[in-house]
């Protein structure tokens, strides 16, 4: 059991982790999600006693990490796959860690076999790929057969087979009653692996619930409506009618409309009523990935308001974040309230823009200009 209470870490004026409280329970895989730079790794380091919190505390099994008796036997961690002296062989690296906790050398060969590195055990780690580095890091975490395991982005650099293996490994470890805490910035990965989700953004807790709850709370249905391409006035007419009837209409790249708040038959009736032909009327479900991105995006955009979740409570303004449509360079011609500049912009390198100038640039609360959505994450849809 890992328990954080009011955990806060400031670097000068920058707050990396802000009043974070959560519990990680044994017997389940707990996913720790957040965009890059949201404070995941800092939190992990504080759990391991590497960084001292500015305020608050975090304990493992009731003890701060630094006062744990024989920590390597109780807690295993993968922090940085490249955190290995490149001139040392994989086996010697693990051996030096094993000796710290009085773990016999036979266990080193055992974990090398578990992670599939037995053939390269005598090779220097400088020649290792990122995936091999991850495996070596996982081996180091497993070394002491600990009850608590922390993995910081364990699937980075792994091939599909490796990802599958890590997924099963974590589930297996949790099934044995261990506490498994896995960070990731990929919702899709966590949706498949984790039982419980802790989502943070900008160092703040956004969500702490089981995956099932997260799905039912955050995903929502919408209808996609497409009108003939030769009638832009039809499109506007239909939009006006739908909005009048109480629906929310947003434009998708590619010219379709995304309608929420109205059942499909009603949309059809309304279209018929205003004499607009439909080329498409289809039911869709927003993916978990989109829900997650809205969640984290919302925090960035609404950060300077009192309630960090102000933008999230709203019923789904499910614009097309993460929606896998090819022609996303088109600026949508759509009428409605969706200012979609920078829709698919890649995340800015380095630290995020200061919160100070985001509210001013904010056109309307329904709008969520995405400035920090990694393009790579856009390709996954309906991942559940």
């Amino acid at each position, binding site marked *: 059991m890992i328990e954080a209470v009011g955990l806060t870490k400031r670097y000068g004026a920058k707050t990396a982790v802000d009043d974070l409280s959560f519990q990680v329970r044994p017997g389940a895989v707990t996913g720790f999600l957040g965009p890059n730079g949201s404070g995941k790794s800092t939190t992990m*380091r504080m759990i*391991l*006693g*590497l*960084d*001292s919190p500015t305020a608050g505390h975090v304990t493992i099994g009731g003890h701060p*990490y*630094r*006062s*744990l*008796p*024989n*920590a*390597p036997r109780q*807690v295993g*961690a993968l*922090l*940085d796959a*490249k*955190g*290995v*002296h*490149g*001139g*040392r*062989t994989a086996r*010697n*690296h693990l*051996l*030096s*860690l094993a*000796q*710290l*906790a*009085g773990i016999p050398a036979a266990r080193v060969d055992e974990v090398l076999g578990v992670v599939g590195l037995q053939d390269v055990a005598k090779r220097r780690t400088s020649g290792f790929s990122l995936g091999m580095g991850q495996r070596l890091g996982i081996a*180091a975490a497993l070394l002491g057969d600990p009850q608590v395991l922390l993995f910081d982005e364990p699937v980075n650099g792994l091939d599909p087979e490796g990802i599958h293996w890590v997924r099963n490994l974590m589930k297996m470890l949790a099934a044995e009653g261990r506490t498994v805490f896995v960070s990731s910035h990929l919702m899709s990965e966590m949706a498949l692996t984790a039982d419980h989700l802790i989502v943070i953004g900008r160092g703040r807790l956004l969500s702490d619930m089981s995956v099932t709850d997260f799905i039912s709370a955050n995903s929502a249905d919408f209808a996609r409506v497409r009108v003939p391409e030769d009638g832009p006035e039809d499109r506007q007419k239909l939009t006006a009618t739908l909005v009048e009837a109480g629906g929310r209409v947003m434009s998708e790249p590619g010219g379709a409309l995304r309608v929420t708040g109205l059942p499909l038959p009603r949309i059809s009736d309304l279209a018929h009523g205003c004499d607009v032909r439909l080329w498409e009327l289809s039911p869709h479900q927003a993916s978990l990935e989109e829900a997650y991105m809205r969640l984290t995006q919302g925090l960035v955009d609404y950060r300077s308001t009192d309630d960090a979740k102000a933008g999230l409570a709203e019923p789904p303004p499910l614009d097309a974040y993460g929606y896998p449509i090819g022609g996303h360079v088109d600026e949508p011609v759509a009428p409605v309230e969706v200012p979609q500049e920078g829709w698919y912009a890649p995340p800015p390198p380095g630290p995020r823009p200061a919160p100070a100038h985001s509210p001013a640039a904010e056109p309307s609360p329904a709008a969520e200009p995405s400035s920090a959505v990694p393009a790579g994450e856009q390709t996954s849809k309906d991942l559940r």
Partner: protein
Amino acid sequence: MASVPAVLTSEWTKIRSVSSTTWTLISAFVVTVVMGAALSALLNATFDDLSEAEQATFDPTFVSFSGTVLGQLAMVVFGVLVVGTEYSSGMIRTSLAAVPQRATFLFSKIAVAGVLALVVGLLTSFVSFFLSQAMLGDRGTDIGADNVLRAVVGGGLYMGLIAIFSMGVAAMLRSSMLSLGILMPFFFLVSQILAAVPGAKDVARYFPDQAGSKIMQVVPDAMNTDPAPYGPWGGLGIMVLWVLAAVLGGFLVLKNRDA
């Protein structure tokens, strides 16, 4: 809590499993011995060309340690790398997660690497002495002569202490490159130059290498060097104080900063 013997064992594994250890220590040995022997042979051949003052204070023991000036640089590299690679590789996080007691971690590491450096230093110093005496022929001295054994053992201690000093500095600066960039020019140039500049030499003789090298002299003010206000053991004491300060500084940095 990770026990001290366990940490010592682990640090020994770490040290012996990287090739930089072997190479730096072998170069320290080879450079010191070869250069000492070569200079001894040279001085023996050109003894008559030396100034009168130099002839009067000719110290065959001190001459055998002429190679230390260069050989100590390899010791500096060894000391810096032992600590610095933990930081440059990121291994420090894994290490500290495994040994949350940072004092145990750092002092065990320094103890293991320091003892190794001392052993290699002593070996270097004895081999260097005997080889150089052979080169000096009749002008050489004997290990049984007054103070000679002290100087030869001192030469080994000096090499070990230089390495430990470098470990402390690397722990303070948390970077191999930065530490080498400061220590190498300091020991190779700055200290040597300042020690030859009038005025500055009053300060420079309290630098770790200048003070520490006094232990290797048998004849007072050997080879017409400047008289110092401390004896051989006093000089080594000054050096030990420097080493303690560096290690303490390194420990405080490690203890108080985030890894």
